[in-house]
């Protein structure tokens, strides 16, 4: 098991109030339950294509996006159901999309890897590793140009760091001092390739520094640490007007995708990480603080179950796009 080095001591302010803390817990659980449902629906062949689960990594999206406002931009990868959900897309529109239905957020065109919502400023759902980073640079350029107070949150994996587009984007963002929060979800693997076999320098904050980008590494299994790290980053960005690099050390409990035989890591390694489950950890501290008891927990689970079974019913009942609409949306505007 890779040990998380305590490089950064994140300071917990007392400003975490009860509803906020419970919200973090609930949101992590929403992602978990949504993902579990997706896995089940996948085995039932209701969801098809590639499916990449976020189970184990929930603290990252939850902690970071707890600090995002509706007006902020978010870009994520193909492992983005949780990010989409927390940015405001309804479970209905997400599930319906994965069912390929007309009521899906992308009317069935995108699927699991391509969730988009203009309304919620959720710009993908990008299945080409690294290709979202330049988009984040451009979105930030636009908001700065238009005088809009927006942060662009850009999520990507440790694997993406090796791509040329990572390099080009970090340089552009730093050169032009753009408000992009680069959120690197370091789960120590890009598919089956461990970070040590992919990066000559595995300290990713050091890499960011080589672009003169301020960076911070946080424990991505601890949602409070993620919140604090994100607050620190945003505070810095506010003061300094420029990009920031946040590394979130985390782990995926499941295989890379539903096709992955998971041959490249040991059962023990996975097991050890599972003992640091972000949801269980948070549950424990909430209980210790007296903010959570069995009753409350049941109510939360019930609420989530209601949300998801409603979404599932909705997705199942929804119609497919009409075949005549095949040629729609190839060109915007006058229907070229």
């Amino acid at each position, binding site marked *: 098991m890779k040990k998380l080095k305590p490089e950064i001591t994140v300071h917990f302010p007392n400003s975490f109030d009860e509803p906020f803390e419970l919200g973090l817990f609930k949101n992590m659980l929403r992602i978990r339950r949504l993902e579990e449902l997706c896995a089940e629906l996948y085995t039932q062949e209701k969801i098809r294509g590639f499916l990449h689960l976020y189970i184990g990594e929930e603290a990252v999206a939850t902690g970071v996006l707890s600090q995002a406002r509706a007006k902020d931009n978010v870009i994520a990868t193909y492992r983005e159901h949780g990010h989409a959900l927390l940015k405001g897309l309804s479970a209905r529109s997400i599930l319906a999309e994965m069912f390929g239905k007309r009521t899906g957020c992308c009317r069935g065109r995108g699927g699991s890897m391509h969730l988009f919502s203009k309304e919620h400023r959720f710009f993908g759902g990008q299945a080409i590793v690294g290709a979202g980073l330049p988009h984040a640079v451009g979105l930030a350029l636009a908001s700065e140009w238009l005088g809009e107070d927006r942060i662009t949150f850009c999520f990507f994996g440790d694997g993406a760091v090796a791509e040329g587009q990572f390099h080009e984007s970090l340089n552009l963002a730093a050169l032009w001092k753009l408000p992009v929060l680069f959120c690197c979800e370091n789960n120590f693997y890009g598919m089956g390739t461990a970070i040590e076999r992919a990066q000559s320098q595995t300290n990713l904050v050091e890499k960011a520094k080589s672009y003169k980008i301020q960076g911070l590494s946080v424990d991505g299994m601890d949602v409070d640490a993620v919140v604090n790290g994100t607050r620190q980053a945003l505070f810095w960005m506010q003061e300094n007007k420029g990009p920031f690099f946040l590394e979130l050390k985390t782990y995926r409990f499941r295989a890379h995708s539903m096709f992955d035989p998971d041959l490249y890591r040991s059962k023990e390694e996975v097991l050890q990480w599972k003992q640091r489950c972000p949801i269980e950890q948070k549950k424990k501290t909430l209980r210790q603080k007296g903010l959570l008891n069995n009753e409350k927990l049941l109510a939360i689970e019930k609420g989530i179950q209601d949300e998801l079974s409603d979404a599932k019913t909705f997705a199942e009942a929804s119609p497919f796009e009409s075949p005549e609409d095949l040629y729609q949306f190839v*060109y915007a505007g006058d229907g070229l």
Partner: protein
Amino acid sequence: MRISYREALKLGLREALTKNPNTFLIGEDVGAYGGSYAVSKGLLKEFGPHRVRDTPLSEAGFVGAGIGAALGGLHPIVEIMTINFSLLALDQIINSAAFMHHMSGGQLAVPLILRMTTGAGRQLGAQHSNSFEGWFAHIPGLIIFAPSSIEDARYSLEFALREQNPVLMVEHAQLLNDEDELPEKNTSYSLFSSNIRKTGDQITVVSFGANVKKCLAVADKLEKQNLSLEVIDLRILRPLQLELVFESVKKTHRLLLVDEGWLTGNLSAEIGIRVAEKFFDSLKCPILRIGKKEVPVPYSKHLEDLTLPQEEGIELAAREMLK
């Protein structure tokens, strides 16, 4: 007003920057250097570095940033110095720019203009002499303008800016210094149609970009010998607008295609097969195609000349068809 193709492009750029506050020109050396083909020379001074933005050498990065900026509410004009370097950004152009409107179920649009110089003929060697514009016409979601007249050079940007789609504007290096009268703007003028550059009734000659010039020269020459060629400039390569081509072939029953793409799989193959299908019974002779010879473009002048479509070859083909 008599102006050069280069000046016409610049007029278009100046107008775009003046009229549209959310438009800007961005790319390698568009500013301080003045544009590698001097198209944007002076615009940095006129509009400032906010509107005319130099970038590092990062084609994927700044094309992708253009996509992001378009998603964020701007209408960027991105210059990729030459079409050769567009390969470095092709993933962004295809998998993101061209597909995103569709993948998002119509929610997002990518109003992005990608200008690039194209074409061979200046002894720049294989890596700097590609003409990929016809090849790119394979990709749904893209709009591709290949202005070949002064008028098109002047107004294509205006039409591109009306789009909410990614538009490639390919400017052939062999046209930049050409001068011609810029006609008054006609209300019926549109880039969304091909353009009959010379009327005739014996052979329909279809081309685009700088090769239209060569076709026109041959048509002028043959006219004096009472051979009548109709020269059609495609002008927009995707979505293809072939109505005028079909009308013309209905009249001439003969089709000659001239294209700077390598013969195999160039855009002319597509036009040819469509005409062959539509006029199965009425063509008077097989369709002829003149493409780039299937070699990487060589540096040496005589070899480069041999590689590219030339007037002699076009003339020969035309005569052959009328035999």
